């Protein structure tokens, strides 16, 4: 078995909050790879673990699940793969992670995994915390009773990580089969036998699960689904009552086995978690704490990121100018200095804000606070047609709608999930921050109202408007969308634990990385395309515009600088992009937008933050001066016909409201398409949000003008 490649796949499986991801991080460190499970947008994290010099294994982190009878789409992925020996992710062995505080309940899934015929290594986590809280476990006896090796592990000290490694090695070396825990009843055996030749399974229990789930398992062909369904009807196979019977039987068997092995005498003093929850989930104080936390979060995002953002901005400006001064004036320098660098800068500048947002959300998840939020607000959210779990999606929506929409998979009711998906993009995401910060300068004067800064208040108002509209829309959709189905809360509230820095670090790295590389690629392409479209035009058009501008300049007796600005402006107006912007101008004129804004609206459909990059590109191409920031360049922009400033407060407010409501994001549309399985929902979402945007922009522009 001496192999250097990692041909062995090991699945990490455990209940939600069992410490599974922590263990995965401890074992694989920075060598992780995130992809999707085929056909679904459930994150599939894989990593290589080197056992010793001639054995490495691939670890796959599966979504947390309570049993092989799934309740949500996330859990379905686990059942889909583990019931199908032909699946390319079907593991050779399983590491089953158990949270010792909640030991008994997790035995259920363990016995199910063993009955699939998979070799299992059990890892009990949170050793340090468990011992401190007075849990006593006879590991040796436990291991004998459950017929699987057991390791008690602490992610904090990691002192016995080598035991896990040798445990994995042993899984492959001694292949003794575990005695089946649950024996099928004659009824169940009959149906399994009947389909033995048509289905593909390793153990009878695996076959039974295939039959139980045949309706939604993707690998079972349609005609076979029908056949199984008919047979179930014929013999009176009742899924629910059989599942109850199986579950009770498993509990009965293992409760007998593990009796006396685990002793958990809660210290006579109240557990820390209960003390914290007395305050944090308190009827009155709980929601106040949550609200203050949210305020603190957004405050932190804005104030702490100010300085690093300035550094980044200055850095990019310096770089761009350096190129222009020190390199020959040719198209390549132009492309770099006026196209790529300003375009990229427009996005990269927001890394500090996104970093902070994911950092705070990551900590709230890691310590166990998020499930308390779900508990506190479930009933309130239900009034809006959503679910307590929607809270997490809406909060994450403050960072980015894409992961937020993916996180709705834990909502088991389709209607509630759909509504959450539909309204989440109305929560202002971090990509709107650049647009807001740029435009609010033109919308609101920089002065104080009481103890608050007027611009800060305006930003707060924009955020509130998004949230308010999300709630209104969900309320409306609650009455429009007509699908019924069971809806559950049933959430376990885990022991609070101190956050592990590494876990949060990896979480933030993953999310920020996805943002930078995901958006970065598109932005790079868009900025190159933009630069080209702005620098070139239909043959002769730009030359003609230049000649005319020089003549006009001479006629009006303009200074040299004024003439140069006029030439630059005329040239961009006659470039390809100028024509493109002009062609949509009639549609956006009622909102107070000119063709330059039109261009930015088109390009920022790729991602909202491109608005800033586009403005930077347009204005650096169109300006004779180099070292001004975008906002300063925009402030100088005047309408050449009327002589008025282009960006007055009416236009700025109109644009701001447009960005609050419009679904200006390709990635969101793509993910909604994927999550809902049809184009119907993303199209409806685009239309209703676009309608809101147009309506409110029109209203405010005409009100202020």
């Amino acid at each position, binding site marked *: 078995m001496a192999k250097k490649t990692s041909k062995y796949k090991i699945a990490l499986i455990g209940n939600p909050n069992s410490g599974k991801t922590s263990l995965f991080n401890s074992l694989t460190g920075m060598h992780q790879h995130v992809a999707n499970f085929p056909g679904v947008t459930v994150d599939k994290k894989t990593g290589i673990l080197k056992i010793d010099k001639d054995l490495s294994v691939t670890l796959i982190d599966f979504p947390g699940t309570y049993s092989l009878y799934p309740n949500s789409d996330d859990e379905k992925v686990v059942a889909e793969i583990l019931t199908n020996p032909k699946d390319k992710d079907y593991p050779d062995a399983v590491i089953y992670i158990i949270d010792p505080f909640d030991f*008994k309940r997790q035995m259920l899934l363990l016995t199910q995994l063993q009955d699939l015929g998979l070799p299992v290594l059990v890892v009990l986590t949170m050793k340090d915390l468990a011992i401190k809280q007075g849990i006593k476990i006879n590991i040796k006896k436990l291991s004998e009773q459950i017929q699987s090796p057991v390791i008690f592990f602490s992610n904090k000290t990691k002192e016995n990580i080598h035991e896990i490694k040798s445990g994995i090695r042993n899984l492959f070396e001694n292949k003794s089969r575990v005695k089946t825990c649950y024996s099928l009843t004659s009824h169940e055996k009959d149906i399994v036998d009947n389909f033995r030749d048509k289905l593909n399974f390793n153990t009878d229990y695996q076959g039974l699960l295939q039959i139980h789930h045949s309706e939604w398992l993707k690998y079972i062909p349609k005609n076979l689904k029908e056949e199984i369904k008919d047979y179930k009807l014929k013999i009176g196979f009742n899924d629910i009552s059989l599942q109850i019977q199986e579950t009770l039987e498993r509990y009965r068997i293992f409760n007998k086995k593990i009796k006396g092995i685990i002793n958990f005498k809660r210290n006579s003093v109240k557990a820390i978690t209960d003390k914290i929850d007395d305050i944090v989930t308190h009827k009155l104080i709980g929601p106040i704490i949550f609200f203050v936390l949210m305020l603190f979060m957004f405050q932190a995002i804005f104030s702490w990121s100010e300085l690093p953002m300035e550094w980044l901005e200055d850095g990019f400006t310096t770089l761009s100018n350096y190129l222009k001064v020190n390199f020959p004036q040719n198209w390549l320098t132009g492309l770099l200095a006026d196209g790529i660098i300003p375009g990229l800068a427009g996005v990269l500048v927001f890394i500090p804000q996104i970093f902070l947002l994911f950092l705070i959300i990551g900590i709230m998840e890691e310590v166990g606070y998020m499930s308390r939020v779900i508990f506190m607000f479930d009933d309130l959210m239900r009034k809006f047609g959503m679910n307590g779990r929607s809270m997490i999606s809406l909060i994450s929506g403050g960072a980015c709608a894409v992961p937020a929409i993916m996180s709705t998979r834990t909502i088991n009711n389709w209607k509630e999930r759909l509504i959450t998906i539909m309204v989440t993009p109305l929560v202002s995401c971090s990509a709107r921050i650049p647009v807001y910060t740029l435009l609010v300068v033109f919308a609101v004067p920089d002065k104080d109202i009481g103890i608050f800064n007027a611009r800060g208040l305006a930003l707060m108002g924009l955020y509130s408007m998004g949230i308010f509209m999300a709630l209104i829309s969900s309320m409306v959709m609650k009455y429009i969308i007509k699908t019924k189905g069971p809806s559950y809360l049933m959430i376990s509230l885990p022991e609070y634990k101190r956050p592990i820095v590494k876990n949060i670090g990896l979480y933030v790295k993953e999310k920020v990385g996805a943002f930078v590389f995901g958006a970065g690629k598109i932005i790079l392409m868009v900025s190159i395309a933009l630069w080209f479209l702005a620098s070139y035009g239909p043959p002769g058009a730009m030359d003609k515009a230049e000649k005319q501008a020089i003549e006009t300049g001479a006629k009006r007796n303009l200074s040299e600088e004024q003439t140069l600005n006029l030439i630059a402006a005329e040239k961009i107006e006659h470039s390809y992009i100028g024509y493109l912007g002009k062609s949509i101008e009639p549609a956006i004129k009622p909102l107070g937008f000119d063709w330059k804004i039109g261009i930015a609206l088109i390009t920022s459909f790729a991602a909202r933050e491109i608005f800033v990059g586009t403005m930077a590109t347009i204005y650096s191409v169109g300006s004779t001066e180099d070292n001004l920031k975008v906002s300063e360049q925009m402030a100088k922009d005047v309408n050449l016909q009327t002589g008025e400033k282009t960006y007055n407060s009416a236009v700025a407010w109109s644009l701001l409201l447009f960005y609050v409501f419009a679904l200006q994001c390709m990635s969101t549309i793509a993910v909604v398409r994927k999550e809902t399985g049809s184009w119907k929902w993303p199209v409806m979402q685009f239309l209703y949000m676009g309608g809101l945007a147009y309506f409110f922009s029109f209203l405010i522009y005409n009100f202020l003008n």
Partner: protein
Amino acid sequence: MRGSDISKGHNYKIKDFTNSNIAVKLLILGFLPGSVISLIRKSPFGGAYYFDVNGNRIALRKNEAEAIVVD
């Protein structure tokens, strides 16, 4: 008596369930006939219940708690 009627700070024993669709999910979470259950608190808006079941903390909605028959 039902799970939704129990008063704070007292221990009860789970006897049975009234709704098998809910029961099957509660079983998975460790709500078993014979388990000791107590109410820790209700949610701020009253629609959700924070229970302690055999030392595990679990939140249920009102209708889910109603499906539990306790003694």
